[in-house]
C-alpha cells in the first residue's frame, strides 16, 4: 500500500501513457504525453533532453498534474480515470545514466526499452534523460472513467524529500 489510493496505484502500474501538465514561464498550460512509473511513494517520468522544455518549466514552477485518461493505454480488468496533482522536481544530475534507476519500472511496462537501449549509439540524445519526480498532494478518481459523475477526491500528505 503506497501513498495513493489503491485504484490509482493500479492505474499507474499499467498505464502506458499519462498526460503531464506543466505551467510555462507565462503561466500557460502545456501538456505532454509520457509513460508514468510509480514506486509507492513518488511518481516518476523521464524526459529526453531532446524534449526538455518541460524540464525548464518544472524548474521554474514545480506545480504539475498527471492524468490517466485513455482506456486504450491501460491494461486491467477495470478502467478508471485519475488525475494526480503534485510538486515535481527535476533530477538532471546525471543525464547519461541517472535515469537508469527507473529502468526496472520502465522495463515492466515496455520490455522493448532494452532493445532500444541496446541501440543507444543510434539515438544518443534520446537516452540523455532527466527524471521528473512528482510528490502527490491531491488525487481525483473517476470510477469507470465516468466524468459525468463527480470524482472521489483524496487529499494526500505528500512525501517529504
Amino acid at each position, binding site marked *: 500500500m503506497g501513498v495513493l489510493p489503491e485504484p490509482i496505484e493500479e492505474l499507474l502500474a499499467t498505464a502506458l*501513457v499519462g498526460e503531464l501538465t*506543466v505551467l510555462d514561464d507565462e503561466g500557460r498550460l*502545456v501538456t505532454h504525453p509520457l509513460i508514468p512509473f510509480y514506486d509507492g511513494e513518488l511518481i516518476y517520468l523521464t524526459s529526453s533532453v531532446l524534449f*526538455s522544455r518541460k524540464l525548464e518549466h518544472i524548474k521554474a514552477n514545480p506545480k504539475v498534474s498527471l492524468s490517466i485518461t485513455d482506456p486504450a493505454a491501460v491494461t486491467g480488468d477495470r478502467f478508471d480515470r485519475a488525475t494526480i496533482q503534485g510538486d515535481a522536481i527535476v533530477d538532471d544530475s546525471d543525464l547519461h545514466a541517472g535515469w537508469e534507476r527507473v529502468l526496472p519500472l520502465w522495463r515492466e511496462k515496455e520490455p522493448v526499452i532494452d532493445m532500444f537501449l541496446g541501440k543507444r*549509439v543510434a539515438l544518443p540524445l534520446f537516452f540523455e534523460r532527466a527524471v521528473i519526480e512528482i510528490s502527490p498532494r491531491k488525487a481525483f478518481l473517476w470510477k469507470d472513467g465516468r466524468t*459525468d459523475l*463527480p470524482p472521489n*477526491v483524496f487529499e494526500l500528505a505528500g512525501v517529504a524529500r
Partner: protein
Amino acid sequence: MKPSPELLAGLGARFEHAVIVFVDGEGYPLSVATDFRADPERGTVELHAVAGDEVQPPLGEQVNVVFSHIRPQPGIGYDERRYVSLWGKLERADGGDELVLTPDRALGWDEEEVPFFEYSERSVPQARRYFEQVSAETGRDVRPKLSFGWLFLRATRLPFLSATFVPILLGIAVAAYDDGFSWWLALLTLVGGAAIHLGVNVFNDVFDTQSGADEANVNPTQFSGGSRVILYGLVSMRKMALLASAFFAVGIGIGVLLAALRGWDLVWLGVAGALIGFFYTAPPLRLVHRGLGEVAVAVGFGPIMALGAYFVQAREYALEPALASIPVGILIALILYVNEVPDRLGDAASGKRTLPVRWSKEAVVRGYELAVIATFALIVVFAVTDLIVRPTLIALIAAPLALPVVRALRESYDQPYALMPAMGKNIQLHLVTGLLLVVGYVIAIIADAALDNPPFFLH
C-alpha cells in the same frame, strides 16, 4: 499555430476522447477527460459537461484541451503515437450544459506524419540548449556521452570501410594473379587505405557541420546524414579535426613508406587520392557541392585504391586492376548516390548540390538503373575480351541485389526511413559484387596453380 479546419475535422477520427486542463484555485493544473465533437466550420470543439464542483473548468479563461492516442502492443510497447493540444477559452453552449472551446492555438505530433527519428532530429537544438543550461547551473561542462567504442564507431563511420577494403583486395588479387603477392605489404596497404578513408569520413563531418549541411538535414539514417557527433555535442569540432588529421597523417605516412619501399611513382596516386578525399567536402573545391561527389568517390574508391594496391605488390602500374575496379567504383558511387536521396532537402538548403538535388526523381531512378546495367555490362565485356579474368563473371550473380533498391527508389523516394532497407541492400550490392570479383581472381589463381592447361573459362 492557429488550428486549421482540417485539423479540427480530423479530431473525431483520430482521437477517442479529450482532456480539459485548467489551473485550479491553488495554482495546480487539473485535468478532466470528456467526450467531444469538433465543428470545423465554426472552428470550435464541443466538450461534454463534467460533473463535480471541484473539477469544473473555468469559463472565459484560457484552458488547454488535449487529444492523445497510442496503440499498445502488448509485451512490446506501443505505436500510433499522436497528440493534439489546443488552447483557447471555454464558453457554455447556448441552451445546454455542453462546453464550447474556441481554440486560438494548436500544437501536436503524429508519428505517421513526422516519424519519431525526424521529430527527434528537429529537437536537437533544444537538447543542446538544455546541456548549456545545465552546464551553467552546475558550473561544469555537461555533455552527452557514448562509450568510447560506440563513439569511435559512430564518429568514424567504421562499417563503411568495406568501401576501401573491396578495391584494395581487388588490386591485390589482380597482382597475385600476375605472380606478385606479399601479405605484409597487403596489410600495410589495407591499414593505409583505411586510415585515409576514416580521415575522409571525419573531415566530411567537420565540413558538413561548418557548412550547416548536417543541421539542415533532419532525416539522417544509419547510412546517410553523417555521424552527427559534432552536431549532437558528443565530440568537439576541434577534436574531430584533430582525429581526421591524425588519420590522414597515418595514411600519408604509410603511403610514403610504401612509396619508399616499392617505388616513388606511387606518390602521384597517393596525392591524387588524398586530394580527392580532402576536397570532397573541403573548400574551396567542395566536389560534392558541385555534383562531382559521385565521380570523386568512384575514382577514389575504385581505380585509385585498386591501382595503388596493385602497384605496392607489383611495383608497376597496369591496365587490368584499373579496369577490374571500374565496376566497384561505379557501385560505391551508387551507395553515395542513393544515400543522398533522403539527404537532398538538407543538402539543398546548405548549398550542397548533389545529383539527387539537381535531378528529378525519375532521372535519379533512371540514372541508378543505367549505372547498374553499365556495371555488370562492363564486367561481361572485360571478361569476355580477356581484359580481366573470366571467372570474374561470377560477380553477375550479385546483380539481382539491385532490384529491391530500384523498387524502393520508385516507391519510397520521399520516405527516408522506408528507404533504409534499400540503402543496406545497395551497400550489399557493392560488397558482394566486389568480393565476387576478388573470388573470380582467386579461382583463376588456383586454376593456374593446379592445372597445367586451365580451360578458357578459368583464366
